[in-house]
């Protein structure tokens, strides 16, 4: 009883069994989609005491293409609520301000620092970067970026090239970026240093409208930024490396903050009117940055110093540092200390005096006044199976604005014109 000698029974069986074993190709499961991508995600809460609160979420996606090139995609979403200092000074009586849109007002209580709470803002930013190892010594990168919020659109490109020499101990880098920002302020651009129209000062809504419109300029304006960085990274010894960057940044266009104002006070320090701030339409900034990073008995230490100066006369020094200690192979703690001090811009003044001639440029925004800040942060991280990492940090940020030598007149001496501000930063991050 012979089997008929068929040659390819094996092949026929293989084909027949395929139909049986995988009748339908299952949809690719999600971890296939992410395979090959390294992903870093972070969620951060920034909260100031009774001022601004912000939530920021970042997703950073990185993929390696053979050994030489790498694509990096980043998406950032943040949303802002709360109130920020308008620039007006505190007064012994309550004050009324017109909202930037001209529709409605907000009242500030006696003795309070005037805060404008019209900011509910969400922003989305997308960026892509392509890094290419051209040869053993040369590496290049190019990138594009875009960011959109309801009154501000920003688009930019950047590129750079790096040359490593001396057995990869020294790396020279040059990179440049161009950014175009379009601003569409709520209620259009205020006419520089024009006086704010307050509804109560007018008999009719129509009269108020007319006066308000006189304080309005174009609906939008833009500014362009050219950034250049020259960098040198040098390995010092088996444990330490150093990085030196010189940064040049030239900005031209609308640099005024459309929502900031200055109080105009009389000799008794009492606000008579409020004027919209005006800043120069160009700014040339230099920065010198030096970083040392090293391994000390298994722990990672980095300390850096930055010197900034610009033609607005803001000079600043920044001391920053982290100390990371590994309690075990997969658990570490990290300390973050930062100290920053800056001088005031030449056109910064906390208020204007009635009767004195109006300067060409003036701003009472404390952020370009004289100020020192320090940050104290702690962070913990767990290295998990499969190269995942979970980390969380908590930081306290204290700003202490200072009087840059302006004589306080009348009742202003009773008020805190340079209130300090504390903020908390809480962040959780996961990478896989």
């Amino acid at each position, binding site marked *: 009883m012979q089997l008929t000698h068929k040659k390819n029974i094996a092949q026929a069986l293989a084909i027949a069994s395929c139909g049986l074993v995988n009748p339908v190709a299952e949809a690719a499961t999600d971890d296939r989609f992410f395979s090959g991508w390294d992903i*870093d995600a*972070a969620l*951060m809460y920034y909260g100031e005491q009774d001022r601004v609160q912000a939530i*920021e979420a*970042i997703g*950073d996606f990185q993929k390696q293409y053979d050994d030489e090139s790498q694509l990096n995609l980043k998406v950032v979403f943040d949303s802002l609520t709360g109130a920020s200092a308008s620039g007006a000074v505190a007064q012994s009586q309550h004050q009324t301000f017109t909202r930037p849109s001209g529709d409605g007002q907000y009242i500030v209580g006696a003795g309070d620092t005037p805060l404008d709470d019209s*900011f509910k*803002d969400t*922003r989305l*930013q997308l960026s892509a970067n392509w890094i290419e190892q051209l040869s053993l010594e040369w590496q290049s990168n190019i990138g594009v970026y875009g960011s959109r919020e309801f009154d*501000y659109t*920003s688009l*930019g490109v*950047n590129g750079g090239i790096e040359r490593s*020499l*001396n*057995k990869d*101990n*020294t790396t020279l880098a040059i990179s440049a970026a161009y*950014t175009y920002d379009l*601003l569409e302020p709520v209620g259009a651009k205020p006419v520089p240093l024009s006086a704010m129209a307050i509804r109560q000062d007018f008999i009719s809504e129509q009269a108020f409208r007319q006066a308000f419109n006189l304080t309005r300029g174009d609906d939008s304006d833009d500014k362009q*930024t050219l*950034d250049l960085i020259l960098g040198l*990274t*040098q*390995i*010092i*010894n*088996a*444990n330490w*490396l150093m990085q030196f*960057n010189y*940064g040049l*940044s030239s900005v031209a266009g609308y640099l005024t903050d*459309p929502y900031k104002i200055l109080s105009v006070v009389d000799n008794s320090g009492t606000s008579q009117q409020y004027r919209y701030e005006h800043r120069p339409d160009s700014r040339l*900034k230099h*920065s*010198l*940055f030096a*970083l040392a*990073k*090293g*391994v000390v008995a298994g722990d*990672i230490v980095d300390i850096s110093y930055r010197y*900034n100066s*610009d033609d607005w006369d803001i000079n*600043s020094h*920044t001391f920053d540092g982290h100390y990371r200690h590994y309690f075990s192979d997969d658990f570490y703690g990290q300390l973050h200390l930062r100290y*920053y001090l*800056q001088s005031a*811009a030449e056109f910064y003044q906390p208020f204007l005096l009635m009767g004195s001639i109006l300067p060409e440029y003036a701003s009472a925004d404390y952020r*370009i006044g004289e*100020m020192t*800040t320090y940050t104290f942060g702690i962070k913990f991280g767990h290295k998990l199976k499969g190269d995942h990492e979970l980390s969380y*940090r908590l930081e306290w*940020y204290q*700003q202490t604005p200072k009087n840059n030598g302006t004589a306080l007149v009348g009742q202003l001496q009773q008020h805190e014109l340079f209130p300090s501000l504390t903020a908390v*930063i809480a*962040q959780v*991050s996961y990478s896989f």
Partner: protein
Amino acid sequence: MKLKICLGLLMLTLGGCSSLGVEPWQKQHFAREDMALNHEKLDLSLDDHIYFSKEGSSGGRAFAGGGCGCN
């Protein structure tokens, strides 16, 4: 004349750089992930964004631009 001397000096400093540094096989610490200059890049970019919107100067480690109104 001045230019040539500067150029000469520059070459010397670069030459000097070659005395700093380690041999390729002594770089085990620099292979560590946490020793990379862009390590914790999300924390760095979040910090940059906060300080850009809260202080008068920015940049240094990276570009100075902020890309936001940040009023």
